[in-house]
């Protein structure tokens, strides 16, 4: 029983980190029709900045700088690289983001080398006993902060002018333009928000019990990606459900590894894709997706 609870908490924490990244995928996709493959490099960028800065300016300030700088970087990618191109050429723009990802990751990997960087979070390796299981404080912080942030993003989506503009533009670009909605500004803001979410995800991804930030940390985005897809790609709640599903599945596969050894080792790494494929076989448009969402 304790093991199940332990695994569930692990899975939820993991899922909420995926959700931060997957939400970024969905927001950018809705705003510009582009799959942002640079999301992993954004995450690495934010994490790296926080790691380098926290000894000098303290953890919270470093985190704030990391999150803001990543938001600016993402916004700059949109403004400088994508803006001049035909916005209807989603495939070209998507491929361009792969190039951006390679550039940023290569430079950061050169700087990080083989190091393991700490982001200087205040939770360290503390644990608390919770209903018979010991849970790292960082995991609890992860779940709490993610719930707050994701809740805020959902609220912004539903109630704010930006969210309304974004949803309108995602449904019908021309009609939204005719309302006088400034499409390119809405889009840039979407990129900024996705960047900020990725930088925040870096923090929880590298906190205890994970060893720290390494040059491959950005590859986590490859797991949030199936989460966004199986959620339907245009649906923020879908991305959340997909992320939690994948996080819990991965934790289960890792937790019961010995029982599942018949499948070989490392099933936890494959689990996100197995879940995605299973869901898409049953629901080709994702859990909460719409038909137009499958255009990429």
């Amino acid at each position: 029983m304790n093991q199940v609870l332990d695994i569930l908490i692990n899975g939820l924490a993991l899922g909420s980190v995926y959700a931060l990244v997957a939400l970024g995928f969905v927001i950018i996709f809705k705003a510009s029709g582009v799959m942002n493959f640079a999301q992993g490099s954004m995450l690495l960028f934010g994490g790296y900045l926080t790691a380098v800065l926290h000894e000098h300016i303290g953890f919270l300030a470093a985190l704030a700088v990391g999150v803001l700088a990543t938001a600016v970087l993402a916004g700059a990618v949109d403004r400088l690289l994508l803006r001049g191109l035909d916005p209807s050429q989603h495939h070209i723009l998507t491929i361009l983001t792969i190039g951006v990802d390679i550039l940023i990751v290569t430079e950061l990997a050169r700087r990080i080398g083989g190091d393991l960087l700490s982001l200087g979070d205040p939770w360290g390796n503390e644990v608390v006993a919770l209903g018979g299981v010991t849970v790292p404080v960082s995991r609890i912080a992860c779940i709490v902060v993610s719930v707050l942030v994701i809740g805020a993003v959902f609220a912004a989506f539903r109630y704010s002018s930006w969210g309304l503009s974004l949803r309108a533009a995602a449904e019908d670009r021309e009609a939204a333009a005719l309302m006088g909605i400034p499409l390119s500004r809405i889009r840039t803001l979407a990129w900024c928000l996705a960047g900020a979410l990725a930088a925040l995800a870096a923090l929880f991804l590298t906190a205890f019990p994970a060893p720290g930030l390494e040059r491959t940390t950005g590859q986590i985005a490859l797991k949030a990606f199936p989460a966004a897809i199986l959620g339907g790609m245009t649906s923020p709640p879908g991305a959340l459900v997909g992320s939690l599903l994948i996080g819990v599945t991965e934790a289960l596969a890792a937790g019961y590894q010995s029982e599942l050894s018949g499948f070989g080792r490392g099933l936890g790494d494959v689990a996100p894709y197995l879940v995605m494929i299973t869901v898409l076989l049953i629901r080709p448009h994702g859990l909460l997706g719409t038909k137009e969402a499958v255009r990429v």
Partner: protein
Amino acid sequence: MFGFRARPGAPPPSRSGAPPGDGPADLRVDGLQVRYGRAVTALDDVSLTVPAGGVVALLGSNGAGKTTLLRAVSGTLRLYRGGVTAGTVTYGDRSLDGTDPVAAVRAGVVQVPEGRRVFGGMTVDENLRAGGLGRVRRDADGGNAAARERVYGLFPRLAERTGQRAGLLSGGEQQMLAIGRALMAWPRLLLLDEPSLGLAPLMVERIAEVVREIHAQGTSVLLVEQNAAMALALADHAYVLEVGRVGLSGPAEELSRSDEVGRLYLGEGVRAG
């Protein structure tokens, strides 16, 4: 001219439905040429005026360039890879270059797109809110609340369906919503692209009434229609576009008696084959 004394005949300024702020201005299209890509010239040397407070109808068959003209005014040419290559579009003292829909809405020129194009996944209320997003002074003039009241006054049926998804409305209700959504931006000039398209005759009549009412509230209207009978009944003045040029123009009453427009009603001679 007479200080603050109201001129006789002018619409009472404080009437609840009237658009506040500046009154309507003249829309002038002068020698307009529009091209899509490098090769396709959709409009050539088109001149047209929508006087302040007027209703002007723009008629013509498919492909004559009616929608292109509206795009040039509302600034959505670029979405179709088009651009103004000669001529000017001005509203009052503002020049509109055909590529900035935000500027057009801020100037008070708002288009209702052809085929309604409501945001089907959003509720009626959210559609209306979205319509108010481009308004310049969002909180002045009573803001969304006053605009919404005006829309629900014109379309009581929408008021009964505020929480419903727009995609589930009937065609006529969607057209009402599309017009209402545009009104949320307090337009001084409303551009209507084929509002009667695909609607039952009774609903066409209802839409015509509404256009008349909107005009009576002080908004100028540029009405693009294939339903020439409806358009000419509403308009003071009309233009007929033929393959990218103005073929005929004149007072609506005169045009509706002319033989050429008669043929256009019947679709003879205009469409080859």
